């Protein structure tokens, strides 16, 4: 295997040993433990069998922790950071886009370029900008971590406060980028819907503007839900960069350490989780669409 990870562990464990046979014995022991002495197809079958039982094996870079243990301690941080950030960004982005489409004029002229700028800024760019302004120059927020390094995770108020303070920069860097993309999409959808024939017809029958706006935004919102599902599905990989820059103890950081350490079991497991999340998000989306968009239901019943 390239950069044989087992050799790295063996070297670590055999540190200080001068006996060549002893080192050899340690290496063989780990080779057997990770099963790297078996042919690749066989290794794969064993891996599949173990995964079905919920066993992802040992992490190589963080041995003796298991992969399951490493992921379960980091996935919570990722979900807690990204899910609210994506939802807040999506809601704010859609509201701003809808307002821009409805008000037009000056509001639109400011929001549109701003959104374009935000959405095209790479995640690391946004993270670095926030980091430099608010953490390095203004020193309002800490530069990295999920909580103060001097603390031990506990249910105390101090620890909670530390978590909240550390939360802000990564959270807003994701929110801002999400707002940009969603606002642009919502704005063009809403403008399209505002010019639809049904809007004119409803107006000519004297239907109130507040009602008509509700029709328009509901219809403009439907395609935006795809964007939401996409963001949620790919959140682990998508905003990985934000986590890395802020050294946030989430899944993104775990992936980075895994790749650096040649930790194949951990890489496989995180990739698998990302795949599941994307599939799950799209599956939920399909079901949701059937419930909220009558056009989909009508197409199915034909």
């Amino acid at each position, binding site marked *: 295997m390239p950069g044989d990870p087992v050799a790295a562990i063996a070297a670590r464990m055999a540190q200080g040993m001068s006996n060549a046979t002893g080192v050899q014995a340690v290496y063989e022991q780990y080779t057997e433990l990770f099963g790297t002495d078996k042919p690749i197809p066989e290794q794969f079958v064993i891996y599949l069998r173990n995964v079905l039982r919920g066993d992802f094996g040992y992490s190589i870079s963080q041995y003796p922790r298991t992969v399951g243990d490493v992921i379960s301690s980091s996935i919570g941080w990722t979900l807690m950071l990204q899910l609210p950030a994506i939802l807040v960004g999506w809601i704010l982005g859609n509201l701003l886009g809808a307002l821009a489409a409805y008000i037009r004029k000056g509001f639109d002229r400011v929001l549109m370029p701003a959104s374009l700028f935000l959405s095209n800024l790479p995640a690391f760019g946004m993270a670095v900008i926030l980091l430099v302004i608010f953490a390095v120059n203004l020193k309002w927020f800490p530069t990295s971590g999920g909580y103060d390094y001097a603390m031990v995770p506990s249910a105390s108020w101090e620890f909670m406060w530390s978590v909240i303070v550390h939360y802000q920069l990564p959270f807003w860097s994701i929110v801002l980028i999400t707002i940009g993309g969603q606002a642009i999409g919502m704005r063009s959808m809403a403008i399209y819907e505002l010019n639809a*024939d049904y809007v*004119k017809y409803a107006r*000519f029958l*004297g*239907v109130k503007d507040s*009602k008509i706006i509700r029709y328009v935004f509901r219809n403009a919102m439907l395609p935006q839900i795809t964007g939401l599902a996409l963001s949620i599905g790919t959140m682990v990989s998508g905003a990985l960069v934000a986590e890395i820059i802020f050294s946030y103890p989430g899944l993104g950081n775990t992936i980075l350490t895994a790749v650096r350490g040649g930790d194949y079991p951990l890489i496989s497991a995180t990739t698998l989780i990302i795949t599941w999340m994307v599939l799950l998000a799209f599956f939920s989306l399909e079901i949701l669409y059937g419930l909220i968009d009558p056009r989909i239901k009508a197409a199915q019943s034909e």
Partner: protein
Amino acid sequence: MTTPMTRAMLEVNELTTRYITRFRESIYAVDHVSLSVGDGKSLGIAGESGCGKSTLALSLIGYYFPPLHYTSGEIIIDGRTITGMDPDEVRKTILGREISYIPQAAMNALNPTQRIIHFIEDVVLAHHPGTPKKEIYERARERFELLGLPASVLQKYPVELSGGMKQRTVIATSVILSPKVLIADEPSSALDVTSQKMVIKMILDLMDKGIIKSLVFITHELPLLYNVTDDIMVMYAGQVVEIGSADEIVFDSVHPYTRALMGSIIVPEKGLRDVKLTAIPGTPPNLKNPPSGCRFADRCKYVRPECRVAPVDLHETASGRVYRCIIPEQELRTLYEHEKR
């Protein structure tokens, strides 16, 4: 002469509306149009594409959205002048209640994600807040059944209806509040012949059953109007060129444009069947910069130098015909006779 006057339901005096483009140019698509439709009467408006028919339909409603703007003139519905009223007041008390509208493209006139009954609820509640939903449903059901539509349509989404059904649903929805005047803007032109016939029958039913009192029917098919409306008005380049009873316009028109329009369409009516089809050469003038004289001059067979000098007025002859041409009626008739031979 138009058909004998009963009490006017819709009266329009010198109405002018214009489009203001992004470059601040004004386009007068409805230019000093006057018309009157009596109680129980119907008026057809005909003309080729771009003559201002649809703009006139939108203008008659008295509620304007940019880029269309009201310029001058008045609209009187059953004795009540609606031009100059507060737009919000017009929306609440006039639209849908006094005057209603059937759009050209009924295919997309209904919100795709809303059941028909919910849209009807919104329409009724906008005018009569607090009406119980049950009452609205009963009223909608009654109205739909009276017009030959199954009540089950009410619970459906627009996508579940066929094109003809959608158009008929739109018509029934437009008259849910029993408006006095109904403006139908080419309600049948996007449909196949069978659906067209059903739609026309339904609109005539609205008159017969007393749901509406007066009808304005807009179409580019002049002969269709003969079977539908009492009077016909022909428009060209934003102006009225001739107005008269259906018989007069279809069989005995005076204005060269009306003649040309009739000559360019296959007419199944007796006496007109064998007429040779002739196209009208050229295209209508650009309304951004209309010609100073007669607007039809460039395409008219009988054009004279004096046609291009000054704007031509709509005038009534001694025999009661109303048209916009400087050539006297008798002289025009002689020209037409001469051509036949």
